[in-house]
């Protein structure tokens, strides 16, 4: 037992290094993205409309566009989006709102379909750990148990709890690389091994397999239920991804339809939820997207027009 005392100064030294690496405000754009949300959230009290989601949910639907559409003052709209904020991250924000007893007249949450297949990225754990009230973390783990790799999710969460630098590892490496070896230029990096540039990586593709999306559906259900506590009405927007225009495999089309039906059911079983489905008639063509998930200027126009029509059809505002 006496030997274990030796570990104390070592752990203290590592904790100090960890704090220096993770607390520096220049480090970690993922953390800084959340700080932007924190700043907006703390400043805003008494707002009527809550806007949630990731960049894909918001870049075509900024508050400056949404506010006149809803016929509310821009200052009454709280932009609580965070870059890369999927359903679990949005749920963490809503759990905080529940605890703070905030009240909204309307909440808008956009769900990009690709998000269904991407719940194991390390930054999702960072967001969940940072944004979720600590006492709700066990609930998050219970929902992860419905997903594909619950132990991996638990491990990533544990990593974030133990080390502040863990969630920012990718960013730290990029920063060190830039400082030590010079910034990487993707356009010419291949020249050391080949004069021919490698083929561009195709955009991410979601197969909507039930096992893959089970966790996200469970989280979306919890998110909507909690939103129901703080918001009189909720608009759930189903966003498209570029792969939907390229699917010709009947099995995948069936998987997508089943997945869409699951969202319809999530909305139908909650009377306060209005589903706006932009995945069918909205932006679908490759030219509508800049990178497979984010919209191009053309895509934004298509999306906005359809959203405005659907919103009016739903009797909003």
């Amino acid at each position, binding site marked *: 037992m006496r*030997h274990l005392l*030796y*570990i104390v*100064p*070592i*752990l203290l030294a*590592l904790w100090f*290094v*960890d704090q220096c*690496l993770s607390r520096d405000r220049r480090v970690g754009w993922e953390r800084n993205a959340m700080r932007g949300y924190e700043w907006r959230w703390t400043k805003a009290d008494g707002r009527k409309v809550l806007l949630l989601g990731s960049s894909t949910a918001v870049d075509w639907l900024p508050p400056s566009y949404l506010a006149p559409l809803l016929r509310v003052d821009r200052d009454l709209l709280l932009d609580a989006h965070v870059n890369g904020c999927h359903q679990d991250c949005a749920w963490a924000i809503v759990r905080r709102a529940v605890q703070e007893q905030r009240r909204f007249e309307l909440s808008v949450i956009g769900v990009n379909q690709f998000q269904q297949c991407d719940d194991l990225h*390390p930054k999702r754990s960072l967001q969940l750990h940072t944004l979720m009230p600590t006492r709700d973390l066990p609930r998050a783990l219970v929902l992860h148990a419905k997903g594909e*790799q619950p*132990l*991996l999710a*638990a*491990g*990533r969460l*544990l*990593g974030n709890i133990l*080390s502040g*630098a*863990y969630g920012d*590892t*990718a960013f*730290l*490496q990029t920063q060190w*690389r830039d400082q*030590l*070896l*010079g*910034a*990487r*230029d993707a356009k*010419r*990096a*291949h*020249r*050391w*091994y*080949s*004069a*021919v540039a*490698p083929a561009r990586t195709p955009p991410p593709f979601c197969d909507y397999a039930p096992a893959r999306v089970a966790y996200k559906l469970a989280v979306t259900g919890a998110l909507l239920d909690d939103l129901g506590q703080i918001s009189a009405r909720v608009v759930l927007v189903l966003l498209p991804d570029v792969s939907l225009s390229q699917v010709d495999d009947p099995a995948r089309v069936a998987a997508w339809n089943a997945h869409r039906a699951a969202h319809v059911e999530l909305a139908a079983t909650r009377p306060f939820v209005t589903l706006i489905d932009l995945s069918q008639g909205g932006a679908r063509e490759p030219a509508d997207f800049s990178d497979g998930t984010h919209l191009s200027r053309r895509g934004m126009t298509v999306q906005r027009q359809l959203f405005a029509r659907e919103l009016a059809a739903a009797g909003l505002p």
Partner: protein
Amino acid sequence: MSFASPAFVVFFLLFFWVWPNLAGRSRQRFLLVASYLFYASWSAPLLLLLVGSTVLDFSVGRALGRSEDPDRRRGLLALSLIGNLGALAFFKYHGFFAESAAASLQALGLDVGASTLALALPVGISFYTFQTLGYSIDVYRRRTLPCASPLDFALYVAYFPQLVAGPIERAERLIPQLAALSSRAAPRADLSGFGLIALGACKKVVIADNLAPIVDAVYADPAHAWAPALWFATYAFAFQIYCDFSGYCDMAVGVARLMGVSLTQNFRAPYAAAGPAELWRRWHISLSAWLRDYLYVPLGGNRRGPWRTARNLLLTMLLGGLWHGAAWHFVLWGGYHGLLLVVFRPGFWDRINARLPLQPLVRLLRWFIFFHLVCLGWALFRAPDLAACGVVLARLLDPRGWQFGSWLLAVEASGEGGLLALWGLVMATLLLVQVAGRVGSEEWVARVWRAPPALRFLFVVVLVYACVLLAPEAPQPFIYFQF
């Protein structure tokens, strides 16, 4: 669930939270359930195959123990061979054989499409099949007694630290240790296991996973790659595969030590080898020993003259190559190493070497040449297919295409010179550590464990923190998991 993933950290913590509180048979049952859950994390249905292999070889072993009739004993051994190798052939090689046959017929003018089933390769099948097969052969040869306890035997097949990628353990070594776990005098945990786990994780996550993108980029299109870049990537692959596989084995040995179980050392500074026979005493030692004892020696070994010896070596290594993967370039890699073993048989070369002056220089030259021969073998192993092997070898071995000066300009233009220099330095250091030390991770950790406890903690904590900070965003699966 890979050893180097956060998921395994949770599994590990849960397992060792319960483990010390158990005793007797409940300890073994818990270990078996944990091992099956560990395997099921890849594929629950394929767990049935593992259980089937366990039942088959346990039953064959018991029947062999009861029978004195030579014909019946041969029949029982054949049953085990057919069962195990049949499953391996079906799941791992059926597509390879069907496609190869179709290609051969096509070359003869008969156009037949190869019809193959889309089967998932059961993780670790090559490892546990060889392990159970070794048990049946040993019982048949009366070198080991049949295992009396189904629980002990099930643990021998499914013991999670070494289940998916070895080391391939002998029954006489592992079963008594697993049986002892239920006894009152159960072995105590060896805490140096933490050192091995940390070192193995660091080798895998920090070195192998960061070298992988360099290797993948060059080998994605070797025909258009600069020849010096191909050499660099080939060296990088030599260290990637070493750190990947030996890193896994270090973690496996480390986890087992925390249960008081000692596993076979699988690597002992392989790149310090100055000849093929020495290499195979240092690289994947458990597989080399298995192939020697259950294939090479039964074929006749070196007892029937030089030609039969050469044939046996080539056959053993060809099959060893095929064991690695269902593709011709693995067979070619095996054949290449068989050829090296034939050409560099001890005796002739030793006599020539002994007559040369400046012996230390001769030894250094031998090591240098052989290290490059090993790297050429890795080029065959890493090439995407057989056709690419020819392209890769042609580019590596043709000095007219090296254009070193132009390549350095290209490196400068790419802005990646610093990165390449850094990894070049890391690889040179690793090579120096192997050549100077000539020992494996276990010996290095043993040295650290002789130091004061503070240094041991520092060693473990710093390595773990290095994994946290230096792991690439996209984790790579262990290379040997696909075998």
